[in-house]
């Protein structure tokens, strides 16, 4: 019960005490506390069913919603509905995009209560509205076909995020990335800068109770991001070094001196010493189109 109370406080803000009076009055005839909780749960079910209806008649509902709230008889129910609905909201971002329509109505209700929402920035952050148009139905299958079939069996336990050293210091959330990818929110995922915060350290994958190849998922998602043009300039530069010299970190004069000093050949026996070998590497990047992908200019030997 105290949890519910807290939720009420959180979501109904200053209006709370006033409302509470009314609710006690209107519930005088009703059975005591425990049953009330059951009722809330039933309400939650109702809400879920409602949101399914909303799918079909979303606009109709949100219009209907507001007048309901003003009638005092309905007040108790609508008040208890709210936390459930809003909670539902946080989940719904990851469940079914369709539910977002219900959320929209919640959001518009909340807007006037700006005073308190300003102190709740952490909760507000999750209020991204997802609709059908954001969903690319093929994305999950594309990831599976690219070699990460296991993406489909994620049950969202969050062990991955808990293990992630990058998540401790950046907005990168690997569990969310996987979920959004499975939902098909392709544009959302590939345009997210935080996907580049993964160091591919495999801590998530080692701990995943489902044995999901999480790092492969990250790399595949990044491949799509790269195709869509979300590439860091410094990454393109590393790519260009490999095209130009065969090495991501090519030799420099200081190291040449060091190599000579310790009795090694000034240039290592790699593409640095074998021009024909470099031709092969360049042939490969031409064949795969990597040169175009990073915008490599063969004349200037630099990124355009």
């Amino acid at each position, binding site marked *: 019960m105290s949890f519910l109370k807290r939720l009420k406080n959180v979501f109904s803000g200053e209006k709370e005490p006033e409302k509470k009076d009314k609710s006690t009055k209107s519930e005088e005839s009703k059975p005591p506390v425990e049953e009330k909780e059951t009722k809330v749960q039933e309400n939650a079910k109702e809400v879920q069913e409602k949101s399914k209806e909303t799918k079909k008649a979303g606009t109709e509902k949100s219009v209907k919603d507001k007048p309901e709230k003003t009638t005092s008889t309905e007040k108790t129910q609508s008040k208890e509905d709210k936390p459930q609905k809003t909670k539902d909201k946080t989940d719904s971002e990851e469940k079914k995009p369709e539910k977002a329509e219900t959320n929209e109505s919640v959001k518009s209700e909340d807007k006037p209560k700006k005073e308190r929402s300003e102190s709740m920035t952490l909760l507000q952050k999750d209020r991204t509205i997802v609709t059908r148009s954001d969903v690319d139905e093929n994305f999950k299958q594309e990831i599976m076909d*690219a*070699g990460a079939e296991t993406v489909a069996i994620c049950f969202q336990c969050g062990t991955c995020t808990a293990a992630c*050293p*990058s998540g401790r*210091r950046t907005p990168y959330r690997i569990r969310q990335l996987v979920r959004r990818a499975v939902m098909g929110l392709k544009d959302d995922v590939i345009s997210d800068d935080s996907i*580049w*915060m993964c*160091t*591919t*350290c*495999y*801590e998530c*994958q*080692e701990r995943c109770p489902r*044995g999901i190849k999480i790092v492969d998922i*990250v*790399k595949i998602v*990044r*491949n799509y991001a*790269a195709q869509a043009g979300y590439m*860091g300039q*410094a*990454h393109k*530069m*590393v*790519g260009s070094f*490999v095209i130009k010299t*065969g*090495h*991501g*970190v*090519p030799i*420099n004069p*200081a*190291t040449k001196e*060091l190599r000579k*000093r*310790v*009795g*090694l050949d000034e240039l*290592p*026996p*790699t*593409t*640095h*010493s*074998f021009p024909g*070998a*470099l*031709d*092969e*590497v360049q042939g*490969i*990047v031409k*064949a*795969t*189109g*990597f040169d175009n*992908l*990073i915008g490599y200019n063969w004349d200037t030997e630099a990124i355009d």
Partner: protein
Amino acid sequence: MAEQEFAYFLGCIMNNRYPGIEKATRILFDALDVGLKDMEGASCCPAPGVFGSFDRTTWASIAARNLTIAEEQGNDIMTECNGCFGSLFETNHMLHEDPEMKEKINKVLAEVDREYKGEIEVRHFAEILYNDVGLEKLTEKMIKPLNLNVAVHYGCHFLKPSSEIGIDDPIQPSILDELVEITGAKSVPYKDKMMCCGAGGGLRSRDIDVTADFTKEKLTNMRDAGADAIVNVCPFCHLQFDVGQVETNEKFGTDFDIPVFHLAQLYGMAMGVSKDDLTVDAHQISTDPALKKLDEITGGE
């Protein structure tokens, strides 16, 4: 002729930045009578963070080309870089398991008259020393006991993904600690020992501040444990702890000065190889405090 021979994959950072690691490795393998054959014309592995993240086909094709050089030799590959090991091992594994991918990559390789056959294994320097050479034979070559407290850094791609690599337990391994302690050095336990240095996955070039924040956490934990030096088995981690330590100090106003050695350099020190040959003087973080500590002991003998 040595009984055993490996195709020696150099990569980029070791040979093009820290040649003392390469030198020490050649000296060590000579002493162990294990052959190292140069992979002429090998390239970047290529870097998993950039190539693997941008285009897996290009990544696997360039890696497979490197594998074909070793196939021509008929030798298993040895690399002493976790990143190179990751790229080459993973590509080799993938092309073994996935015939479709193999066909796709061979189509690319055909453009440069090469074909991946899948005849060799990719192996890590430290794992070869542990499993093939053995601690006993290795210990015989260590003539100068190292009185150092060492923070062992495993890095990520040496043991992980463990379901494919299977060298040691990825969460509580002991292979490197054992390899370090035969020199007389003590591997000190420290908090979050298995944590990444922060450089991998393309993060160092994408957002160096985040990378430095990783490194700061590692360095803090290493210093708290009283480490005289950091020992790694990856030139990229090596670079991150060396160059990145300076960057961390600049960004956060810290004063870390923990010397950094690749395992091959540590063995070099224990074998009495000169510090000139180990090129430790070219490190950004002075190795003198660690070397001085060694001199104190030998000076007193």
